[in-house]
């Protein structure tokens, strides 16, 4: 009873926050509602007993991804009116992606997953160990491939955005440390009444 009640509570919160993500006028508020949505999905994962997946979702998406979103969005100077105008253009694309994801969910839940498998996964004592058992054995190739995809994305982002500007002065710590007193200061002996001779 308690579990079912909390499920509906968190699911309702999740959907509400998702709606607010889309319809907030201010992009910073959108990102903050997105954080709330992530948090609610964490709660949903914990409710079905997948506490490892839930907390990893929280660490990765709330602790890192959403902060970077917020970081970028806070620095943008966005005209709210143009933003609202642009949303209409993306509706067909959004519907397409929503349709694909819905089809995937239906395919997975109806045809692919056997109820018994899911139940044993949830009822088992420690799902951290279960994930650890299969991640590097059964799903080794998939795991490495996803790593390579992320690496490519990272290198791509750096290549696209990094511009080397030779005018910027940079600190070269090695050359600073290897400098000796002889490189910087020259002691000159001056005889009285002669002044410094230029050599």
């Amino acid at each position, binding site marked *: 009873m308690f579990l079912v009640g909390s499920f509906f509570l968190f699911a309702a919160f999740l959907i509400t926050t998702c709606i607010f993500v889309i319809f907030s006028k201010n992009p*910073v508020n959108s990102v*903050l509602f997105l*954080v709330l949505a992530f948090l609610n999905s964490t709660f949903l994962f914990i409710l079905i007993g997948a*506490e*490892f997946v839930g*907390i*990893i979702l*929280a*660490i990765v998406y*709330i*602790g*890192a991804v959403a*902060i*970077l979103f*917020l*970081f970028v969005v*806070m*620095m943008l100077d966005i005209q709210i009116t143009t933003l609202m105008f642009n949303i209409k253009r993306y509706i067909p694309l959004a519907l397409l992606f929503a349709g694909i994801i819905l089809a995937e969910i239906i395919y997975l839940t109806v045809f692919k997953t056997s109820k018994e498998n899911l139940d044993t996964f949830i009822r088992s004592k*420690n799902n*951290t160990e279960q994930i650890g058992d299969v991640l590097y054995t059964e799903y080794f190739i998939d795991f490495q491939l996803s790593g390579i995809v992320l690496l490519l994305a990272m290198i791509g982002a750096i290549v696209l955005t990094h511009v080397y500007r030779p005018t910027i002065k940079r*600190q070269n710590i090695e050359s600073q440390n290897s400098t000796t007193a002889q490189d910087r200061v020259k002691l000159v002996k001056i005889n009285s009444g002669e002044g410094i001779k230029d050599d």
Partner: protein
Amino acid sequence: MTSLSFELTIGILKIFSFVVPVLVSVALLVYLERKVLGAVQLRKGPNVVGPFGILQSFADVLKLLTKENLLPSSSNKFLFIFAPMLTLILSLIAWAVIPISSTYVIANINIGILYLFAVSSFGVYGVIIAGWASNSKYPFLGALRSAAQMISYEVSIGFVIITVLICVGSLNLIDIVESQKNMWFAIPLLPMFVIFIISALAETNRLPFDLPEDEATLVAGFFTEYSSISFGLFFLAEYANMILMSSLTVILFLGGWYPPIDIFPLNAIPGIFWFVIKVFLILFVFLWVRATFPRYRYDQLMRLGWKIFLPFTLIWVVITSAFLFYFGLLPN
């Protein structure tokens, strides 16, 4: 029904048994900090309010409470008030999983260390929301610095935690402490211990990494616009976070509630005593560092985090796991 309400009462009492000592020790920690700084700089420190000035922090809190709480007219009012509350809540809910003895803990969950890591990584939201909601330049710069800094150092903290977890084979905090019964992890993992303490300084925005509130360049950083008790909440949260990170260091590296050597007069003393004394020592290191080192420049901070700590911890994870694997020392 009575058993449910009984358990609820016990639970609430347990929560108070953590929160009240934490808040009192925050006050005493502020006093200790001023005394230590005074001693290092050959001053007396607070010595007027109460015996040895020990009531100074309580007097400061009373002063803060009676001041007017100012709301900047162009700020985002809701988020401006919400940010300090969020910061304090996050620094207190983490105590739910901290075990102070082998039996005394509010929630003994399987993934305790991940929960702590998650909560400490949420801490940046309080700072970044405060900086943005103030709608002012200095707080905004402080918030940006804080976001970049905390994410950078979380990476190396994550790798340090992974190294410890490889040696333990469990994510449960009580298991982590109990596997250190014979040898504290600070000895075999000494470099990781040092890196963890330095990253904890950066994660709690303490000197020499307090760039988010750098008073020399940013007035007061992300809480420039805050006054009265909303400033007090940030202050409270910063020190509560220090105590939390110290406890985490003790749990991960200094053997939690175990005495240094397992012989008679030492192991007869209750574990809570050892836990508290170790936390106190780490906190003293925090204050000592503050009195000793100058503040880092921002590019130096980023260089240390990404170019030194990240490669070093990454290699150390590989070395540790290879060592454990080839000598057959892997847990389970």
